C-alpha cells in the first residue's frame, strides 16, 4: 500500500508506504498500544487525586502511538527524523510522569539526551545516504548503503533499541516511567530501533560479511550482558529493563544470522535467521509487556519496586502471580510458550549455518549457539529469582504483607490477553511462522521460501509435543492427585531442619540467591554491581567533558577589560592572518 503526500518546502515528497515489514510493526504496535491503554485505565487510578495532569499524559501517549505508527510508514528521511524525534519527545514526557521524584527527572534527562545522540547518528547516516542517492526518499537509498552509513544508522537505531554499549539510558528510563509506559516502551518503542535496522537492511541487497559479523557480535554481547546485569538487579523494573537489552540482543542475533545467510548466499539461513529475529520482536513485545504490566500491578499494590521487600504475593495476588509466571516462562524461552519458538528458529538458523563450509562461520556460530544457551539458562536463574522472591515464600516487608487483594479486572484483562497470546504462539507456531514469511519476504527472495517447508513440519511436531507435554503433565498430575485423594495431607510449617522459630527474615533473599553466580562474574561489573559501561566508558567521558569545560570558565570572568582584550587579540590575529594571506 502506498500513498504520497507532498509538503512544500524542504521535505519534498513524503511517501507513505505500508510494505510487509511496516505492516508487521503496525500490527504489533496497534495490539500492544490498545492493551497498554486499557491497562493504564486501571493503573492510573491511584494518581487521579494527586494533582497530576492525566490529560497531558494521555495526550502524549496518543502522540507516542501515532508517531510510532508513522515511523513505520514514512518513507522519507527528513520526515522520518521528524516523527522519530516526536516519538522520543512524547515518550520523554511519559517517562517523567512522576516528575516530583529526583531520580525520575534525571532519568528523563538522560533519556532525552541519549535519544538526541541517536538522532544525530541517524542524521549523519541519512545525510551520507541522501548525498549519494540525491534524494531523501527511502526508495532511492537502495544499493547506496555502504558499510559506514550502515554502521552510523545501526548505532543510531541501536541506541534506541538498546544494544550494548548504547544501552545505558534503558535501565534508567524504564523503571522511572509508569508501568504501562514502560510496557509500551520496552514492548514496542525500542522495537522501532529494530525496525530502523531492518529498514536499512532492506536497502542492502547483499550485506557485506563485515557488517553481518558486526551485528551478530554486538547482539551476542548485548544478550549476554543484558541478562548478566539483570541477575544483579533488585529493582523489579530495572531487572526487566536489562532483560529488554538481552532480548534485543537475541533479536539482533536473528538479524545478524539472516545477514550472514544473505552474505554467504544461503537463503535458508537467511530465512531462518530473519524469521527468528522478527518473531522474537513480536514475542518480546508480548511477554515483556505482560511482565511490565504485572510488575506495575505489584507496584500499584505495594508501592515498592525493590524485590527484597516483597514476597508471598502469590496468596494475595493470585491472578497477577500466575500471569507473571507465564511471562517468566515465556521470556526464559522455555517450551511450550512463544519465547521458545523464536529462539528455536534462531538455533535452527545457526545449526544450518554450520553447513556453510567456512571455519570462521563454524566458530562464530557454535559460540553463538553456546551463548544463546547460556543466555537461556541465565534468564532462568534471573526469573526464578524474580518470581520466587516477589511472589513466593512469605512477605519480606510490611508493604508486601499488607496487600489484601489483587488488582482490578481492567488491569488483569490486558495481561490475560497477552498471556494467552504467549500460549497461542507457543502452541501453534506453524501458522505463525507461515505468516511470518510475509515480512521476511522483504529481505529474502520469495522463491526460496519452499526451503522452509520441512521446518514448518518440524514446527508442527514441536506444536504437537507442546500439546502432548500439557496432556502428559495433566496425566501425571492427575495420577498424583488420585494417589493423594484418600491419603492424609498435612499442612505444617516449612521444615526448618529442626529449628522451630522460623521467620520471614530467614528466607533466602534475592541478593543471596544471585550472589553465588555473580561472585564468579565480578570482573564484569563496576562497584556494587553497577554498569561497567557506564562506569568505565560513559562516566569518564562525562567527567573529562566536565573537566575540559571547567578549564574555560575564566572566559566570562566579569572583567570588562578582559573582554576587550579578547577583541584585541582576535583583531590582531585576524590582521596577521590577513597580512599573511596577502
Amino acid at each position, binding site marked *: 500500500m502506498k500513498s504520497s503526500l507532498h509538503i512544500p518546502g524542504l521535505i519534498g515528497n513524503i511517501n507513505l508506504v505500508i510494505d510487509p515489514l511496516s505492516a508487521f510493526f503496525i500490527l504489533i504496535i496497534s495490539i500492544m498500544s490498545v492493551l497498554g491503554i486499557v491497562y493504564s485505565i486501571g493503573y492510573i487510578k491511584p494518581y487521579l487525586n494527586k494533582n497530576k495532569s492525566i490529560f497531558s499524559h494521555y495526550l502524549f501517549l496518543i502522540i507516542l502511538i501515532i508517531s510510532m505508527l508513522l515511523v513505520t510508514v514514512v518513507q522519507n528521511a527528513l520526515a522520518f527524523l521528524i516523527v522519530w524525534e516526536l516519538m522520543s519527545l512524547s515518550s520523554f514526557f511519559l517517562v517523567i510522569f512522576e516528575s516530583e521524584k529526583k531520580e525520575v527527572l534525571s532519568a528523563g534527562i538522560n533519556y532525552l539526551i541519549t535519544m538526541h545522540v541517536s538522532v544525530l547518528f541517524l542524521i549523519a547516516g541519512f545525510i551520507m545516504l541522501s548525498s549519494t542517492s540525491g534524494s531523501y526518499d527511502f526508495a532511492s537509498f537502495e544499493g547506496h548503503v555502504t558499510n559506514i552509513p550502515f554502521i552510523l544508522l545501526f548505532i543510531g537505531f541501536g541506541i534506541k533499541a538498546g544494544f550494548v554499549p548504547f544501552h545505558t539510558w534503558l535501565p534508567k528510563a524504564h523503571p522511572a516511567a509508569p508501568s504501562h509506559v514502560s510496557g509500551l516502551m520496552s514492548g514496542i518503542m525500542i522495537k522501532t530501533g529494530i525496525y530502523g535496522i531492518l529498514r536499512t537492511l532492506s536497502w542492502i541487497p547483499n550485506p557485506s560479511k563485515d557488517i553481518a559479523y558486526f551485528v551478530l557480535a554486538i547482539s551476542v554481547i548485548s544478550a549476554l550482558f543484558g541478562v548478566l546485569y539483570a541477575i544483579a538487579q533488585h529493582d523489579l523494573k530495572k531487572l526487566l529493563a536489562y532483560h529488554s537489552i538481552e532480548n534485543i540482543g537475541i533479536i539482533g542475533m536473528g538479524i545478524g544470522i539472516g545477514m550472514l545467510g544473505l552474505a554467504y548466499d544461503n537463503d535458508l539461513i537467511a530465512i531462518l535467521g530473519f524469521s527468528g529475529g522478527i518473531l522474537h520482536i513480536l514475542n518480546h513485545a508480548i511477554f515483556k509487556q505482560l511482565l511490565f504490566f504485572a510488575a506495575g500491578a505489584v507496584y500499584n499494590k505495594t508501592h515498592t519496586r525493590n524485590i527484597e521487600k516483597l514476597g508471598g504475593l502469590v496468596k494475595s495476588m493470585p491472578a497477577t502471580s500466575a500471569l507473571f509466571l507465564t511471562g517468566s516462562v515465556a521470556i526464559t524461552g522455555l517450551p511450550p510458550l512463544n519465547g521458545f519458538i523464536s529462539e528455536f528458529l534462531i538455533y535452527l538458523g545457526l545449526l544450518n549455518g554450520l553447513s556453510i563450509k567456512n571455519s570462521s562461520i563454524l566458530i562464530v556460530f557454535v559460540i553463538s549457539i553456546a551463548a544463546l544457551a547460556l543466555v537461556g539458562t541465565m534468564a532462568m536463574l534471573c526469573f526464578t529469582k524474580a518470581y520466587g522472591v516477589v511472589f513466593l515464600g512469605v512477605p519480606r516487608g510490611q508493604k508486601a504483607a499488607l496487600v489484601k487483594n489483587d488488582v482490578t479486572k481492567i488491569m488483569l484483562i490486558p495481561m490475560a490477553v497477552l498471556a494467552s497470546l504467549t500460549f497461542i504462539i507457543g502452541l501453534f507456531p506453524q501458522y505463525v511462522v507461515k505468516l511470518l514469511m510475509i515480512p521476511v519476504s522483504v529481505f529474502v527472495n520469495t522463491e526460496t521460501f519452499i526451503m522452509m517447508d520441512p521446518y514448518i513440519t518440524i514446527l508442527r511436531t514441536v506444536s504437537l509435543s507442546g500439546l502432548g507435554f500439557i496432556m502428559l503433565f495433566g496425566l501425571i498430575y492427575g495420577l498424583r492427585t488420585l494417589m493423594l485423594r484418600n491419603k492424609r495431607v498435612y499442612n505444617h510449617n516449612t521444615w526448618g531442619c529442626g529449628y522451630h522459630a522460623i521467620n520471614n527474615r530467614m528466607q533466602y533473599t534475592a541478593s543471596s540467591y544471585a550472589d553465588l553466580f555473580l561472585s564468579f562474574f565480578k570482573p564484569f561489573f563496576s562497584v556494587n554491581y553497577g554498569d561497567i559501561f557506564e562506569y568505565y566508558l560513559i562516566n569518564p567521558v562525562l567527567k573529562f567533558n566536565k573537566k575540559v569545560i571547567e578549564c574555560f570558565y575564566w572566559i566570562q570572568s566579569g572583567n570588562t*577589560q578582559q573582554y576587550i582584550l579578547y577583541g584585541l587579540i582576535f583583531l590582531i590575529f585576524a590582521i596577521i592572518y590577513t597580512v599573511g594571506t596577502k
Partner: protein
Amino acid sequence: MISTLILLFGLINLVMSITGRIKGLITLLSIQGFILFLIIIFSHDISLDLNFLFLIFETLVIKTIVIPSLLKIILFENNIFRETEPYIPNFYSLVISSIMLFTGIILMPFYLGVSISTILISLFFITTKKKLLTNVIGFAMLENGIFLFSLSVAEEMPVIVNMGILLDVFIAIFILGLLVKKINTVFNDSNTCALCNLKDCGCDD
C-alpha cells in the same frame, strides 16, 4: 608640517599611556583634538562647503572643547583625580605602546600607521587601566584615532553620515559619562573591579 603634527599626535598617545593624573589625560585628549583641527586646516583648501565646515566644527568644538569639558565635569563631580595602580606597570605600557606606534609608522607611514597604532594603543590603554573614567578617556582616544584615520578619506563621507557618526560618538561618551557617575554613586567605587558581579563560573552562588 602635517607629518610633524601627526607624529605629535602619536607621541601624545605615548604620554597618555604613562600619565596617572586623570586631569592631565583629559588635557592631552583636548590637545589631540586641537592637533586634528590643525591637520584639517593644513591638509585641506579652506573653503566654505558643508563638509569642511562640519569637520572644523567637529574637531574644534566637539573634540577640543565639549568632550574634554564633559569629562572634566564628571571628574569633579566624582572627586577622582588619580588613576590607581594599573594592571601593567606604566613602564611596560610605555614600551608596548612605543613598539606599536613605531611599528605602525615603519609599516605604513604617518596617516595610516599612526591612526591604526592609536586605535591599538587606545584599546591597550583601556584594557590596562582600572578607573572607569580612564576607560571612557581611552574610548575618546580611540575615537580620535579613528577620526585621524577617516581624515584620509573624509571627502568621500557624505555629510549625513558624518553627522550621524558625530552624534553617536557624542552621545556614547555622554551616556558613558552618566553611567560612570551613576556607578560611582551606586558602587562607591570607580574601579572596574567593582563591576565583576555578572559572570559565569559554573558555581551556584
